């Protein structure tokens, strides 16, 4: 199909210019913001990275339990994941993730073209971890007691917000104000973490993409099992 052919060329163009683009993005962020903000908020940054890593590990473990080829998953999606880390934009990664899913991982085309765009719009575990962690952090800084109603408000708003965050860098800050105001926490706290948000956005976006693609892979795995059984029963 002609349009597919052109898209392939554009995707290849994106992939080949990606190293340069990613270099420029990261160098720009670090040169202008500097890294010392990380030392001041070290435990915050460490906690976020730890949370994302644990969740990614959880997903790989689930793939392993389902015998859905976790190693091949990592290898086939590594272009999408490294791009996610560099651009901090899950929207930008979407076409590459589609390509990786169908060509390298072997996901069925109808599942991939349905599940991966849907997941890019809706599924962001990185955001879920960030918002909950961040809200509690701000409550701790302002010495606001963490009562059960407050925790419930934080949990509920984080859960809902993780389905409606935009897939662009910096969207986390906007959603932070949403979560904080829904829980009744001081919105001024966002100013404290704003400096470090872009630096932690990379790993968080990787988790967003992983959560999206793993769920698609799980669906793919379930569906191919039942199709096999159906065709076996028909024989």
């Amino acid at each position, binding site marked *: 199909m002609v349009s597919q052919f052109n*898209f392939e060329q554009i995707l290849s*163009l*994106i*992939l*080949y*210019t*990606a*190293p*340069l*683009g*990613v270099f*420029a*993005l990261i*160098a720009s*962020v*670090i*040169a202008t913001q500097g*890294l010392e903000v990380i030392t*001041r*908020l070290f435990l915050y940054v460490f*906690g976020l990275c730890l949370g994302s890593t644990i969740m990614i590990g959880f997903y790989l473990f689930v793939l392993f339990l389902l015998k859905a080829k976790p190693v091949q998953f990592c290898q086939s999606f*590594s272009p999408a994941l*490294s*791009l996610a*880390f*560099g*651009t901090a*934009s899950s*929207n930008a990664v*979407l*076409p590459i993730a*589609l390509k990786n899913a169908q060509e390298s991982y072997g996901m069925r*085309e*109808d599942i*991939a*073209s349905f599940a991966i765009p849907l997941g890019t719009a809706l599924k962001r*575990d990185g955001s*879920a971890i960030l918002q*909950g*962690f*961040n809200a509690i*952090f701000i*409550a*701790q*800084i302002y010495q606001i007691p963490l009562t059960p109603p407050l925790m419930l408000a*934080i*949990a509920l708003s*984080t859960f809902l917000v993780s*389905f*409606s965050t935009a897939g662009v860098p910096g*969207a986390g800050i906007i959603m932070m104000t*949403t979560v904080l105001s*829904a829980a009744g926490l001081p919105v*001024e706290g966002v*100013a*404290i973490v704003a400096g470090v948000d872009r630096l932690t956005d990379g790993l968080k976006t990787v988790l967003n993409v992983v*959560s999206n693609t793993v769920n*698609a892979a799980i*669906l793919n795995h*379930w569906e191919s099992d039942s199709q096999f059984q159906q065709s076996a029963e028909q024989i």
Partner: protein
Amino acid sequence: MSISTLILAALVVGTIFGTGLNLYFPTLIEPLDHYLLSPLGQSFLRLIQFVVVPIVFSSLILGLTRIQNATQVGRYALKLITSYFLTSAIAVGLGIALALVLKPGVGVTGLTLSTVSDSVKQPALIDWLVSLISSKFYH
């Protein structure tokens, strides 16, 4: 060298470059960023985002036409959403639990806290729920 290794290498080089600029050549940051780094990075992002909408649209349509029967779409969506809900709940719990255990905000000094506005009005939960629904198709 595979493309993802190249990208990761570019990340490392970019980090080193940015740190070096920030620490040793602070005067160079502004012109270099304004005329070279930012335009390059932003153009790259814009190139991708320009392409994303047509690709997503066409692949959604292609994917939907390939699905054998209409009931399958509903089944896929239901399974996906269930799995999303379960895993998101785990993620939310993990983030909150980590913050409670690590206590990152307790005893933090040296931060200038802006005065908290006295009237922290609790917005009605229902209004906030409605405002979550994004009214724009594409941000």
